[in-house]
């Protein structure tokens, strides 16, 4: 009995410790995100430095290095544009495009997952095979094929990113619907004569929202990285717009003389993704613990 008790307290301690660690990482992640959101709001007040260069001040190194200028904390690029304000713009772009495409993906995924899981039969098999097919096309090549045909633009980028993520939503939602549709409350609502659409969107949908939300937060960092990759290849958002990926590929050309041009935006991207990951992981752990 004594042994049992001590084992219990040990387990309690480790749960407490884990909870504390989770809360700490949640707050670190949230504060990183808060800083980045503030930075992207700031872009509305500093329009000049990011777009208009000063050809007298090209390739200035960061302020703390020798030769750095006071006005430009992270230095300037090949056209004399301020790097820090361009990074702020890039963050704004990532924070706009990422969530929009994830929302689009989850709407698509919820709709098709519900249809597939609830209706079953040939529709289910067909939809599953189609998702298998699209999943086996490497996502960058799929993006390249689509962009090659309809041209690069922000809208294309959002659609391509949504396409890249919606299959995982379909699979998750479908699996959950298959479990839920045998529950009594669904039988009961069918017994009182509710039609399929009402059951799907009024009764099943609310049960699917939490797991869809978790998947959405987990796929947000992937989407942001993928968007940066497409920007890096020059087939994402249209060029004059500052994007983190585009800035890294621009800096690659001047790597020998001005390495900060490629390294600084990559660091910003890393902090952004790590911050989102920290929030997403702690939310997921919290849900797993309470379940």
């Amino acid at each position, binding site marked *: 009995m004594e042994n049992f008790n001590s084992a219990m307290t040990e387990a309690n301690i480790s749960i407490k410790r884990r909870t504390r660690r989770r809360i700490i990482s949640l707050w670190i992640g949230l504060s990183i995100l808060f800083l980045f959101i503030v930075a992207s709001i700031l872009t509305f007040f500093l329009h000049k430095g990011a777009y208009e260069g000063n050809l007298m001040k090209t390739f200035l190194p960061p302020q703390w290095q020798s030769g750095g200028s006071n006005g430009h904390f992270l230095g300037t690029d090949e056209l004399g544009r301020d790097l820090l304000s361009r990074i702020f713009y890039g963050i704004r772009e990532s924070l706009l495009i990422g969530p929009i495409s994830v929302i689009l993906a989850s709407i698509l995924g919820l709709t098709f997952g519900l249809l597939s899981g609830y209706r079953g039969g040939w529709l289910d098999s067909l939809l599953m095979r189609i998702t298998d097919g699209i999943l086996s096309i490497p996502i960058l*090549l799929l993006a390249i*094929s689509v962009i090659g*045909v309809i041209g690069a633009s922000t809208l294309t980028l959002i659609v391509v990113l949504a396409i890249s993520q919606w299959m995982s939503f379909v699979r998750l939602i479908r699996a959950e619907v298959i479990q839920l549709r045998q529950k009594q409350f669904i039988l009961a609502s069918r017994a009182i004569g509710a039609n399929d659409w009402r059951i799907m969107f009024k009764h099943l949908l609310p049960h699917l929202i939490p797991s869809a939300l978790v998947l959405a937060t987990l796929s947000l960092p992937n989407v942001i990285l993928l968007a940066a990759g497409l920007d890096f290849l020059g087939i994402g958002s249209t060029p004059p717009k500052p994007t983190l990926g585009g800035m890294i590929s621009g800096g690659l050309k001047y790597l020998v003389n001005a390495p900060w041009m490629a390294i600084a935006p990559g660091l910003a*991207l*890393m902090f952004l993704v*790590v911050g989102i*990951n920290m929030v997403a992981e702690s939310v997921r752990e919290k849900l797993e613990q309470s379940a």
Partner: protein
Amino acid sequence: MDFKKRGEMSDLIKTQAESSPLKSHGLRLYIARRLLQSLFVFFIVVTVIFVISRMAADPVATLLPPGATPIDRENLRQSLGLDKSLIDQYVIYLNNLIHGDFGISTLYNVPVLPLVLNRCVPTFALALFAILWASVLAIFLGVLASLRPGSIFDRILGGIVSIAQGTASFWLAVVLLYIFSVKFRIFPVTGNSEGLKSFVLPGISLGLAPFVAILRLTRSSMIETLKTGYIRNANSRGLKTTRVVINHAMRNIAEPILSYAGILFGGLASGAVITETIFAWPGIGQLSMQGISLGDYALVQAVTMLASLTVILLNLIVDLINLKLNPVAREKVKQYGKL
């Protein structure tokens, strides 16, 4: 239930399998079913690519110079077969594919298929290099971390993993280039002409994502396995930890890790577009980027199709290897013809 001699359990399963009407046909049935499924998935891929290629508002406009007359336009439309109905176009397209005709590259003016197949080798070699270092290192570190979850080592590794997860592979490539090629000049900047040396930087940046993925999987599945009864039994028999981990626990997690690594390898062998572009690696990823920037659409299509085929085939192979490794799955397949 006690089994007097070893292997009695598997004998029991065997006799069950032999008594079923399918007998040994189950395995053949399963392989046939998986082959057919893969074929169908590839058919879907081909169809998706066809649909994408017809999404353009006016494909002729991008192919002609600005001063083209309406007659030129109509001629080109006819020679490309765009004047026919969409269904006819689809049938012609499928027919060409079955006969191995993937179109002609407008960029190189040769049939696309041999061009792409030639470029597959460097891509494949790079992907193999990346998946090898990633899985060896990830399995080693993951197992070490799983022995004492929550220890200092585990937490430091966890921190490194979460930073690595946020690192874009192309940015890592740029940083590596700066450190090792610009500052210290140890490794070449581009190309694959310097043997093993030229593999290092692109291999590291390409292997980053699979490294993180395999490490996480190894750690979590090893932690779960070490909690099970047969491991406790092995420990209580007084076996050394190294032996318990390597001979007993590794066997259990080998199968999920191998299938995951196989699928990740499929992704690498087909999607190394960014890495190949940065390092001017002469593979299919670079070819597809050339194709898109110079308007050679047949090239992009062929690369996409072959890459998807690679992914589908690797999935199939991974499933068949699993059958070899996992006796439970094998007996189930023998008995029912499916998993």
